[in-house]
């Protein structure tokens, strides 16, 4: 396997991990270009959108080679992005070889998520309870918001695992979270329904896509910025529809 082919594998793997786990487009482009240039490849270009990566470079006496890869799934694990960043930095300054970089990237790709799934559910609950308090709910409202937040988080992950439709999972999670909140208030646990529902929905808010969309647009990646913005908008609409349905059905 030639050097260029190996670099292609490394670049595509690094880009795939970063983009799948929530890095901004400009970061992926820049990382790939730096790594390829560090390996003495000429005429390096990469074009990254939210759903795919294109990269081309010139290998001596073989001409240009170009490949693309498609990114289907998007999750959030900024720890993996950080780790890939670290590997690329070490590769660029020359403290690890291409082989080592590839093995480290493989390990990152195969490693489990940074935090166990129960901790993520728990965190959703705490965030739900905390935000219901911050947005003006009383201390009594934190418990129902906690319970509804945990329910929403579990449904979000489980529904997506089986149905593999992100927006539908968000819709179901918002609907159930809202229904649980309404039920808890109906049974007398908690008083301010609005604050409880707001707290429940906060963990579903598309924070990473929104900030990334702004960053992408600002750095001139208009295509990626607009597509990420669209993703965030559709997520918000799914949440809004889910909660609206719960309210109009049960209130």
């Amino acid at each position: 396997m030639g050097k260029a082919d190996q670099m292609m594998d490394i670049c595509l793997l690094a880009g795939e991990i970063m983009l799948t786990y929530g890095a901004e487009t400009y970061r992926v482009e820049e990382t790939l270009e730096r790594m390829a240039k560090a390996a003495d490849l000429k005429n390096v270009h990469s074009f990254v959108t939210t759903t795919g990566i294109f990269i081309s470079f010139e290998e001596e006496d073989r001409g240009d080679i170009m490949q693309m890869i498609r990114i289907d799934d998007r999750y959030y694990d900024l720890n993996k992005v950080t780790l890939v960043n670290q590997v690329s930095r070490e590769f660029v300054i020359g403290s690890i070889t291409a082989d080592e970089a590839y093995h480290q990237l493989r390990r990152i790709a195969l490693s489990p998520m940074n935090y166990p799934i129960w901790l993520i559910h728990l965190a959703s609950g705490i965030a739900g309870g905390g935000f219901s308090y911050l947005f003006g709910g009383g201390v009594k409202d934190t418990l129902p918001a906690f319970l509804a937040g945990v329910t929403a988080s579990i449904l979000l992950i489980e529904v997506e695992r089986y149905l593999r439709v992100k927006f539908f999972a968000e819709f179901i999670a918002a609907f159930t979270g809202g229904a649980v909140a309404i039920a808890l208030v109906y049974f007398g646990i908690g008083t301010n329904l609005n604050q409880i529902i707001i707290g429940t929905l906060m963990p579903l808010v598309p924070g990473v896509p929104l900030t990334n969309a702004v960053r992408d647009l600002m750095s001139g990646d208009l295509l990626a910025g607009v597509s990420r913005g669209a993703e965030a908008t559709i997520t918000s609409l799914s949440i809004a529809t889910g909660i609206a349905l719960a309210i109009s059905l049960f209130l």
Partner: protein
Amino acid sequence: MIIELVVCFFATVSFGIIFGVPRNALFLGGGIGVLAWTIFRLLSDYGVTAIFATSIASITAATLAHFLARKFRIPATAFTIPGIIPLVPGSKAYYTMLAFVDGDYLGGLELGIETMLHAGGIAAGIVFAIAIFSFGKGIGHRYEAGR
């Protein structure tokens, strides 16, 4: 106020966990979130409009996030997310949706525009921080310095 800050810290750290922020950045992120929330609340208490207060808080949080990102060599997003999360106009967005569900389209539009302006304030803060941190680096370094 103290209880509020403690609650804000835990809520922000929880958000960090949901988005898989690296362990060593988790509590710093919580700190940024608390700072953003404090600025937002203090400015609001002194009669500054909510949108302006949001942008000031967002600018502070995002600038600090970039500074820490450079220091710890961690992508800036890992710090920006917890920093801006307490500012997200969740309640406004919810009431917008509620107004539309009730058929109060005019009220809904009014609230919707306010929500958009709020989000715009947050975005402006992030943009401002990028502008500061990519200042004077030339075309070759169009993007944030991470090295």
